């Protein structure tokens, strides 16, 4: 006997899958359990398991649904998951393909939340083009929160550390309880009507979903939408989403994060200023260096055409001339000196002494020193002095007769 013909694993799996997919109950079901193995993939899909004390159910939620969730489930959370159960063929496992997650026991609140969210979304209150930019460096920051709450202190701490240049204007309000929503609305209005703050931080610290419920209030949501001044929301913890988060111009996961989002960091500002100073100093140094270089080049070029060159050349010519002049003077002097010597020699040759040397004599009257040039200058008996080259003679003139006598006697 032959067994019936076998079918492939794929064929079997496809068959089971069809059974699941055509089951009305399996395709639209809420399942409750405790979250474990929560994994948020970088693709945006979530993978997790929900379990009770007897069974576990693998769940997957695609990115198309995760982006709409108001709560990110954490391990240990009791939640309700909506979706359809089907088969993951590759592993032969059935799993819940989830599209909605809500905290367990929040069924009514959750539905209210979803209805409001859908209505406001339909009105366009969440539209991206409604989101307004706020200044990068707000001078005045409005804060809507409870003055006694840790959230306000967190905001002040962040602002003191990051951007102490700001001025904070607190618009105080209750942030939980039935009176909170109208107070929050009024606090927002006060800032809009009576101040010129650049941005409003609407913040509240973490709490239970009921604690945060004021931020899912329609009046608050509409007040945020109506605010003239951009609003940054920072409500609860990172995993909490409120209607206000969808309406606000920017959503921060916590109050501290809202303060950070609204302000620049003073360290960055300091660095920016220093960098600016550094850059203009560099430019200036380079510019001066290049101008100096130009100047030196010009100076070199100028040197060739400058009067300095003329002056220097002229100075040399003057020196030349001077030297030539000095040489001329010297020659002239020696010439004169030579002539002088010749004149001296001539003069000497004509001097009486020279005559005496040659044997001439000079006769003067002894009594008065007058030259005797003729016999009339010296009568007989006159004493005369005869000047010779070596010495002199003294004599006396005789009369003519006596002389004649002598002559005769002699000749």
């Amino acid at each position, binding site marked *: 006997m032959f067994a019936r013909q076998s079918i492939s694993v794929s064929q079997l799996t496809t068959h089971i899958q069809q059974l699941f997919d055509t089951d009305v109950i399996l395709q639209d079901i809420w399942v409750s359990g405790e979250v474990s193995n929560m994994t948020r993939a970088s693709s945006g899909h979530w993978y997790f398991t929900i379990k009770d004390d007897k069974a576990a159910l693998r769940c997957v939620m695609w990115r198309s649904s995760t982006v709409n969730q108001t709560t990110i489930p954490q391990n240990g959370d009791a939640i309700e998951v909506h979706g359809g159960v089907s088969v993951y063929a590759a592993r032969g496992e059935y799993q819940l393909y989830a599209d909605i997650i809500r905290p367990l026991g929040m069924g009514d609140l959750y539905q209210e939340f979803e209805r409001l969210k859908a209505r406001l979304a339909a009105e366009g209150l969440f539209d991206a083009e409604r989101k307004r930019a706020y200044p990068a*460096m707000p*001078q005045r920051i409005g804060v809507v929160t409870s*003055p006694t709450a840790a959230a306000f202190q967190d905001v*002040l701490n962040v*602002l*003191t550390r990051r951007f*102490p*240049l*700001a*001025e*904070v*204007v*607190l*618009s*105080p309000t209750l942030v939980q309880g039935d009176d909170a929503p109208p107070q929050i609305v*009024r606090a927002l209005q*006060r*800032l809009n009507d*009576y*101040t010129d703050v650049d941005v409003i931080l609407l913040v509240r610290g973490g709490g239970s979903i009921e604690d945060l419920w004021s931020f899912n209030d329609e009046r608050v949501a509409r007040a945020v939408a109506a605010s003239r001044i951009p609003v940054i929301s920072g409500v609860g913890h990172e995993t909490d989403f409120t209607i206000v988060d969808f309406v606000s111009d920017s959503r921060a996961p916590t109050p501290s994060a809202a303060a950070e989002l609204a302000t620049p960091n*003073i360290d960055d*500002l*300091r660095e*920016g*200023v*220093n960098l*600016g*100073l550094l*850059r*203009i*100093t560099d*430019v*200036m140094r380079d*510019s*001066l260096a290049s*101008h100096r270089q130009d100047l030196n080049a010009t100076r070199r070029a100028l040197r060739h055409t400058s009067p300095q060159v003329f002056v220097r050349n002229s100075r040399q010519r003057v020196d030349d001339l001077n030297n030539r002049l000095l040489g001329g003077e010297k020659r002239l002097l020696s010439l004169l000196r030579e002539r002088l010597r010749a004149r001296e020699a001539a003069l000497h040759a004509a001097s009486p002494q020279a005559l005496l040397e040659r044997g001439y004599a000079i006769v003067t009257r002894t009594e008065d020193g007058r030259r005797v040039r003729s016999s009339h200058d010296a009568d007989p008996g006159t004493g005369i002095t005869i000047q010779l080259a070596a010495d002199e003679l003294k004599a006396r003139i005789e009369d003519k007769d006596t002389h004649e006598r002598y002559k005769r006697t002699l000749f």
Partner: protein
Amino acid sequence: MSDISELSFEAAFEELEGIVERLESGQLTLDASVSLFERGRLLAAHCQAILDNAELRVSQIDENSLQNGE
């Protein structure tokens, strides 16, 4: 040009950034560069002084202060 000591941090910082750009464009005479540089230096000092002396100021606007005409 406005008196530097009157400028807010943001205004002074913005002007400093403008000066950095103009100086780095390199289209200026030496005289213009030197005076821009000098103003940039003063602006940076002013910014630093503001940052050094900044102290967070906190005020409050509530229903009572509104009723009291504040």
